[in-house]
């Protein structure tokens, strides 16, 4: 069974801190994604990566960056956390084949105070 593991379930950070959210998948998936989920807004794509060291901006990349140095690991970085980045962050992975579904981690609930 595919496993997507997000390093933290809950995280509390202060405004201005640099924040790292880590995600690891064990199915050799080429694609990895970071979404944020907010009530009433659904899932919004922040960044995705289709290969090691390759990345594409999603719909809301401002204030975020990503890193993919190894195929199984995809990191989301908040360069200077702000209160409007308080949210649930979901990592997902999939094969590159277009019809392949996404497999999600359980999410990281980030609170910025």
């Amino acid at each position, binding site marked *: 069974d595919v496993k997507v593991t997000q390093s933290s379930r809950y995280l509390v950070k202060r405004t201005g801190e640099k924040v790292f959210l880590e995600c690891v998948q064990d199915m050799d998936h080429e694609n990895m994604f970071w979404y944020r989920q907010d009530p*009433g807004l*659904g899932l919004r*794509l922040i960044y995705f990566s289709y290969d090691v060291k390759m990345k594409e901006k999603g719909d809301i990349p401002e204030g975020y960056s990503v890193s993919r140095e190894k195929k199984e690991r995809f990191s989301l970085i908040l360069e200077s956390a702000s209160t409007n980045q308080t949210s649930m962050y979901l990592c997902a992975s999939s094969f590159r084949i*277009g019809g392949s579904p*996404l497999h999600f981690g*359980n999410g990281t609930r980030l609170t910025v105070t």
Partner: protein
Amino acid sequence: AQSVTQLDSQVPVFEEAPVELRCNYSSSVSVYLFWYVQYPNQGLQLLLKYLSGSTLVESINGFEAEFNKSQTSFHLRKPSVHISDTAEYFCAVRGSGGYQKVTFGTGTKLQVIP
């Protein structure tokens, strides 16, 4: 560009009654369509998907969805819901070309009333 619209943010329904959760999409290319379910405090799980072929697709727990190309819809239905179906349901679209972006709707919370 692609987008997904789920018009109903919440749908209350009595146990054993039928339910339909609506999903409409727009895309300039051919698409793959998905429904995901999210139970409280969990990530999303795939419920069912339409890739090609028969326009009616089914899940193992009694849900079904029908792809309607002319109406650009992919509505989710179940003839008789259970308490355990209480969850949030997301419709998603993915372009069939090389671009791998997956776009989600805003979700529909299904509340099954005993």
